[in-house]
């Protein structure tokens, strides 16, 4: 546990020292601001961040989070810092979890900045506190899954750009395409695709419901990708 905290703290510090993290935060704020400004903040529109959360956030996060996570493992491999790291008394599981939580905390900071929009809207209507909590719990779980996928691909390659592209493709498939694909496929693959559709699982959070089923889906999928990342990092030792 202590090693996980140490690792997470180092990664969080590295985010604040990295120009990429600032650029990514700027893109994130700009994109969400654009979606909010053009989609919601207009005369006569509903005072709700629903359209932002319902569609745009998923797209923005699928693009932005892989850019945050791309260097997490690949940079260790490229620069060779994995060697002093894995010869210190810390296990692969602790390294991977530490990096995951470091990125998750940075993501939480980005989410906190997003609270500005409901605060602005509260001037035009009553704030539905519970709905907002559901939305943010959903965003937290969604982000955790996206980070674990990004972390996995970061462990697969030394090239950060490749890590970003692969993560983006898989996340886009899981989030947007699986539902569409399910409609053209028959039989059990359809059920699988439907079950894997991140968008479907996320939708209840958008509507203000927390269903244990969906929470379990996000947590197990995140754990699965973290597990794959650990295996991938362990594989490096045998090559």
């Amino acid at each position, binding site marked *: 546990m202590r090693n996980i905290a140490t690792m997470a703290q180092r990664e969080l510090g590295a985010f604040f020292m990295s120009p990429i993290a600032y650029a990514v935060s700027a893109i994130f704020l700009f994109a969400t601001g654009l979606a909010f400004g053009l989609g919601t903040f207009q005369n006569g529109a509903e005072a709700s961040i629903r359209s932002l959360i319902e569609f745009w956030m998923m797209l923005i996060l699928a693009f932005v989070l892989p850019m945050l996570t791309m260097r997490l493992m690949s940079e260790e491999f490229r620069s060779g810092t994995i060697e002093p790291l*894995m*010869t210190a008394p810390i296990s692969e599981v602790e390294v991977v979890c530490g990096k995951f939580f470091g990125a998750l905390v940075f993501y939480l900071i980005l989410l906190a900045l997003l609270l500005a929009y409901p605060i602005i809207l509260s001037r035009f209507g009553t704030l539905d506190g519970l709905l907002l909590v559901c939305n943010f719990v959903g965003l937290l779980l969604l982000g955790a899954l996206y980070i674990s996928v990004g972390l996995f691909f970061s462990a697969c390659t030394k090239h950060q750009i490749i890590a970003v592209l692969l993560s983006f493709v898989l996340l886009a498939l899981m989030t947007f395409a699986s539902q569409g694909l399910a409609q053209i496929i028959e039989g059990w693959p359809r059920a699988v695709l439907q079950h894997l559709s991140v968008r479907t699982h996320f939708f209840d959070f958008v509507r203000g419901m927390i269903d244990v089923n969906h929470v379990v889906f996000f947590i197990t999928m995140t754990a699965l990708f973290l597990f794959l990342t650990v295996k991938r990092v362990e594989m490096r030792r045998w090559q």
Partner: protein
Amino acid sequence: MIHVKNLTKRFGRILAVDNISFEVERGGVVGFLGPNGAGKTTTLRILTCYQPATSGSASIAGFDVFGDSMEVRRRVGYLPESVPLYPEMRVREYLHFRGKLRGLPFAERNDAIRRVVERCWLGEFIDRPIGQLSKGMKQRLGLADAIMHNPEVLVLDEPTIGLDPAQIRETRNLIKELGEDHTILLSSHILHEVEQTCPRTIIIAAGRIVASGSPQELRDQLSAKARVIAEMRGPTDEVEKNARLLDGVRNIEVASSDGWVRLAIEPKPDHDIREDVFRLSASKGWSLRELKREGASLEDFFIQVTARQQDTQAR
């Protein structure tokens, strides 16, 4: 302290380390000498638990590097070859991070950092980002990191590579000092360096140990095998016939020019035949203009070993 038995490491079809065994006693500095690509780094990586061996076993302080990896890592300080560091961190931050990984509590960590910063002359650079440090300073930081938890065993991979001459001398002195209370295994491809810092040397080439001992022992082993060169003036056949009769001669190569006969005599092990050659020339009245032992320096031996490895690799 370090036990290595029948260690083998393959990377696919390439055999990097081929069945090596050696032991290092507690205390003292052992040099691991070999040309580039001889398997030094691979062996050190196995010992520091970075990579598992294909077969064979290795243990440090009684703990197996594979089975008790965490215990080994707590007891070993490792300086990897290229000293990879996080460029965005500051020196102090980095040392704190490494200290935390080693489980040093805050107060102890502060003391340890103060100690290693002084020992490795990092004082003025402590608040600099690592990315701004020169190669030599990074090397010192890597060394500071390796010794901060006071490990029983220090494993240093090419500790002076890329340093300027003054820094090389400083680092060597530091290693000697550290050798007083740590067991050190250091690798190098520079003979001179190992001769200066290490009371004991293990020479490795093409994944195998080819010789081991103190520089003096190695030199003795070599000189016992070295050829003797003699040049004397006399009838070629006569000279060769008489020389072959000498005790302790295994083989002779003969060449002659301008009436001088050049003998390259390969002696049997542990025979010094130089005196006999002199007596022969004196008794026959053949004047002697050269008498010497060939290739008795470690340097020559090391070059031979290196050349042999390159041959096998070329094939």
